[in-house]
């Protein structure tokens, strides 16, 4: 079990009060030279809360946190240890450096899993809306997979769609962080619970909220700010104009992170944000992991792709964007059943991905 020093304990206890807003908590922190003194000298905190908030909340604070007899501190700490949650306070050594100078930097991060990922050398955010086209999901997964295998830590949310594809791509190598918009007791949406649990085992799941906090609409943009802040570069997979992904893009821009976006065809609703970002020169256009690797200046550890046969190379060379299987057959002059088995082989080898409506996308580029 992790040991916390007095200052850390005080911060964790302070963070456990839902009635205290961020500005009040940080004001209380500023009252003390060492926050740990709060336990012995509750006066300044008491009078601050009584003055700015309410007398009753101030009394609660006095009777729980600052009263050793109440056992409140032990109660809060045991809640964390029971759930295997490690609290990382802004005072802790392993608090992510990328977040330290953030306005509204979380006072405490609740982490489940491999906390060393928080200060990884290279982090990369991949986000997308819930409505993402199937072939984009495959692309997102492939990019996340390639980057994470090369040691880049993938950062994403926990939603279905784009976020899920990023998590799926990253979790095998363990270089993945999922940031929740609620406490660890919940997973929203429920359908991602097993994936999030797996990431807690072989990656990292963090939240800036105490475990029992439920999800609320305004917490999602707040979470998106953390994704942007924690990442060195952010890839926007998809998002309509009104999608939550726009917050991630906005924050990334505000924090001067490198932005990347997948291009979409004209009028495609799920790609409005991406095309807009590319249009105004805010995001770099990327189609695959190599484009991202170039922008991020990293070498992708190439997966050992089995030698492709001439037939396979021929098929691969005619796949241009999302290409229909009948079109591929027409271009190569092969029968459709020959094409299907070649494509299955390419898919198994991770060279192409299958989207909806019998369309295939190449995941690697070959010289024509």
């Amino acid at each position, binding site marked *: 079990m992790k040991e916390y020093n007095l200052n850390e304990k005080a911060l964790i206890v302070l963070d456990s009060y839902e009635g205290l807003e961020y500005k009040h908590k940080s004001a209380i922190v500023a009252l003390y030279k060492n926050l740990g003194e709060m336990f012995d000298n509750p006066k300044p905190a008491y009078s601050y809360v009584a003055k700015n908030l309410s007398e009753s909340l101030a009394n609660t604070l006095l009777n729980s946190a600052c009263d050793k007899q109440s056992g409140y501190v032990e109660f809060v700490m045991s809640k964390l240890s029971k759930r295997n949650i490690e609290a990382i306070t802004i005072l802790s050594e392993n608090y992510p450096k990328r977040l330290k100078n953030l306005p509204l930097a979380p006072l405490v991060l609740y982490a489940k899993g491999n906390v060393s990922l928080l200060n990884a050398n290279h982090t990369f955010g991949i986000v997308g809306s*819930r*409505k993402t*086209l*199937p072939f984009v999901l495959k692309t997102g997964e492939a990019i996340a997979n390639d980057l994470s295998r090369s040691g880049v830590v993938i950062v994403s949310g926990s939603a*279905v*769609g784009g976020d899920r594809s990023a998590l799926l791509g990253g979790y095998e190598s363990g270089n993945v962080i999922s940031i929740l918009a609620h406490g660890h007791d919940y997973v929203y*949406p429920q*359908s991602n619970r097993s994936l999030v649990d797996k990431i807690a085992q072989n990656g990292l799941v963090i939240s800036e909220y105490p475990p029992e906090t439920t999800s609320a609409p305004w917490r999602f943009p707040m979470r998106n700010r953390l994704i942007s802040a924690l990442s060195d570069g952010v890839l926007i997979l998809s998002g309509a104009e009104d999608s939550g992904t726009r917050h991630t893009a906005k924050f990334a821009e505000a924090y001067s992170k490198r932005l990347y976006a997948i291009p979409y*065809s004209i009028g*495609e*609703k799920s790609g409005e944000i991406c095309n807009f970002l590319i249009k105004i020169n805010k995001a770099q256009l990327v189609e695959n992991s190599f484009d991202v690797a170039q922008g991020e200046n990293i070498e992708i550890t190439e997966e050992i792709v089995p030698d492709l046969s001439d037939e396979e190379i021929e098929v691969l060379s005619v796949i241009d964007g*999302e290409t*229909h*299987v*009948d079109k591929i*057959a027409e271009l190569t002059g092969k*029968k*459709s*059943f*020959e*094409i*299907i*088995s*070649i*494509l*299955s*082989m390419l*898919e*198994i080898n*991770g060279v192409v991905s*299958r*989207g*909806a*409506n*019998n369309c295939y996308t190449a995941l690697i580029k070959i010289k024509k």
Partner: protein
Amino acid sequence: MLSKVNSLGLLGLDAFVVSVEIDVGLGLPRFDIVGLPDTAVKEAKERVRTAMKNSGKRFPEGRVTVNLAPADIKKEGAFLDLAMAIGIIKASSDILSEVSISDYIFLGELSLDGSLRAVTGITPLLISAKKLGFNNFIIPEGNKREGEFISGINVYPCKSLNHAIGHLTGTLPIEAVKTRSYVAGSSAKGDSNDLRYVKGQATAKRALEVAVSGGHNILLVGAPGSGKTMLARCIPSIMPDMSFDEALETTKIHSVSGALNDEQGIVSVRPFYTPHHTASTVALIGGGTQAKPGVISLAHNGVLYLDEMPEYPRSTLECLRQPLEDRIVTVSRARMTVQYPASFMMVASMNPCPCGNYGSKTAECRCTSSQIAKYKSKISGPLLDRIDLQIEVDGVLYDDLVSVSNEESSEEVKKRVNRTRMVQRERFLEDGIRTNSEMREKHLEKYCALSPESERIMRISFEKLKLSARGRSRVLKVARTIADMELSPDIKPNHILEAVGYRSYALNN
């Protein structure tokens, strides 16, 4: 006087001998039928009496008692009428006194004017009775066709009660029906549903051919108007010819349920049934007080097409799981438990989401992800697992639509399908199955041994594409069919890969 006449009773698809015993004695005029008759048999009293009167035969004035033995099985249907009338005549007059009727089985419903009406269930009755050792049958003229396909027995079609008596006494001998050799029928002729008219869709057509060749279940997923229904309707035109055995099996069921075409006498074209999605579970599976066969049994050796599969009540769909696996359905009712064969090829179609446009590049999908998940969850995993081929059908390009390219006609495809089925029939000669889709684990072991290279490909696809154990055997079966289509004795890697390619829907979603 006492007389005894043989007739039959029907229990599911099997017949049992009903001994119709008639006693005509002194006493007040009375007519009793004992031996567990149902309503139709009880009402035979009036039909028999009137029919005899109108045929110029005297109905005995005295006490007539009819016993239907064995007494503990319920007798159903009106086909015992003829046997009763013959028995009463034999017991009460000397018309038939010199004639031995114990060699004959009498079947037929009497009309009030003495003529014989066609009845249901003749084919299974004749087949079972032949096995029981009976050779001579007198049946209604209207059922003549059904007697034509059963060799080794004498079937005498009769127009009326007098006609039957004339035959028995030798004054008006009837010629036994000539055995007709079986010719598989064709549904393709003059049918507008021909693959020739399906433009483009090369992949989907290939998948259909594979499915039909091996009798595999197939699911077509696609947006509205993409041609799923048209493709499905083309299936009868490429279905392989029905063998005599298969035809007879199907005819039995059709005969029992009264669905048989009188002109044909045998079901020589593979049935194609498309029950509406409001069909009740009983209609689909079989049941009712008489445990009648349902649509899935009528589709035996044929196709059951479920259009818009998610619209069927989930409980109804789940009922299909067991017959899909066992190819037989057991219908149990209070009075009886009957097994009907239900070896059908299931063809289903569905949209990718409630609005139908998910994944489409031209139209926007209006569904939320939870709506799509809910729609898909209407078809349970176990059911989806039983569908060997799951393909996506997408809209045809306008250029393809107006092109005059020569598409292959159903007739040519059918030739190949017939050949592939022949390969399977020869292989399974001793196994009691006919198609690759019917293979069980032991058959897979015997006929689907993989070379090390194929095994390697199978292993990789298994791991990479996260197939279930059942998924693996499904892929193997389809691969076997694809190999058979090429007349290849071994399953090669490309066969496996193609088979894997036809599980797109399950893998993608």
